[in-house]
């Protein structure tokens, strides 16, 4: 059961997704020892809620992709332990949200499903990271543009796509992550959504998401394959992606299904460095 959390809903009053976020927060507080952070009051008086958020893991409930609650959490430097978005949950559970601001049958059904999933997620056993079977030794080239420093691994085993994700291939396994370009552009990363172990990923399919106050970045897998490991420490410490996106901040490992076919659409260090430099110059002048 979800217990001892500080719950920050967007609580938007003019959209059903916002109303649902508030309702879920209420029910979580009625059923267990959780505490709600009122986003409106938090804007004008932060002392009480900073204390609550400092003492408890924080669950953020966004109504929609405008992510008002996430942005507020970022503004207040809160560490997000768990996060859901009502419109995304509605898609997952195949429920159509009503446009009515009063809760209808559909909305209540969705609320029940979300509460069940949240409570069950707390009962799951933690994933114990597998001992790495191989060592990934990176050698870097460094590129500086103004105050920004970008490291790019130059090992021949590292492949890139043009969406700024890397894959270090050993045998028929690859470790996957994002490059310094991504983490510098997103700035402080607040939240990491991993793929599931066992997920079958297509080449250029989504292999997790990372989120900052500025944006949401979909990780685009350079290779196709099956997810066999995730870097679970990132779930509690997404800042590792900023600190070191290649070693401590790797995202997932996959068992490759079409190494040679996939390589045809990937690039090596030399080409990626050129592309990245151009992107940096285009974005920063």
């Amino acid at each position, binding site marked *: 059961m979800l217990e001892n959390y500080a719950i920050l809903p967007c609580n938007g009053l003019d959209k059903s997704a916002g109303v649902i976020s508030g309702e879920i927060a209420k029910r979580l507080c009625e059923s267990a020892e959780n505490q709600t952070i009122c986003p409106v009051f938090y804007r004008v008086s932060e002392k009480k809620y900073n204390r609550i958020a400092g003492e408890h893991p924080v669950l953020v409930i966004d109504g929609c992709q405008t992510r008002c609650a996430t942005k507020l959490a970022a503004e207040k430097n809160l560490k997000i332990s768990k996060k859901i978005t009502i*419109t995304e949950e509605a898609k997952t559970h195949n429920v159509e949200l009503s446009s009515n601001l009063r809760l209808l049958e559909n909305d209540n059904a969705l609320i029940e499903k979300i509460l069940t999933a949240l409570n069950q997620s707390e009962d799951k056993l933690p994933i114990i990271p597998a001992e790495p079977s191989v060592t990934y030794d990176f050698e870097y080239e460094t590129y500086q543009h103004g105050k920004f420093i970008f490291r790019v691994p130059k090992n021949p085993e590292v492949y890139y796509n*043009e*969406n700024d994700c890397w894959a270090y291939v050993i045998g028929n396994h690859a470790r996957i992550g994002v490059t310094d370009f991504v983490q510098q552009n997103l700035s402080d990363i607040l939240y990491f959504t991993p793929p599931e172990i066992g997920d079958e990923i*297509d080449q250029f*399919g989504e292999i997790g*998401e990372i989120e900052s106050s500025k*944006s*949401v970045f*979909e990780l685009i897998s350079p290779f196709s394959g099956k997810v066999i490991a995730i870097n679970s420490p990132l779930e509690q410490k997404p800042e590792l992606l900023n600190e070191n996106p290649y070693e401590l901040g790797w995202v997932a490992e996959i068992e490759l299904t079409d190494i040679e076919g996939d390589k045809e*659409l990937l690039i090596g260090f030399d080409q990626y460095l050129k592309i990245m430099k151009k992107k940096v110059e285009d974005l920063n002048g």
Partner: protein
Amino acid sequence: MSETTFMGVERNRIDWKPTIDYTKCDFCMECTTFCPHKVFEVRECEEMKLIVRNPDNCVVFCRACSKLCGPDALSFPDKNATTQRIKEIRKEESNA
């Protein structure tokens, strides 16, 4: 000849751009504020106040704007179909 390429294919040969669902869009313009590639354009005086002005500026496989769209009004082509099309174009070009 397109000025830019993606995976060695001229960008204007790859159909990857957002489509705006005007029945959902509330013209909040968050997407124009967010996208650094100037894919969207605001047209204040027209009925459709937002259009996709520069589709070829859109980064292939990037769907960040749709993930930030509150009313969920932006959609993208199927990724697998796009990957297949890129492979076909590369094959056509290598055989040409």
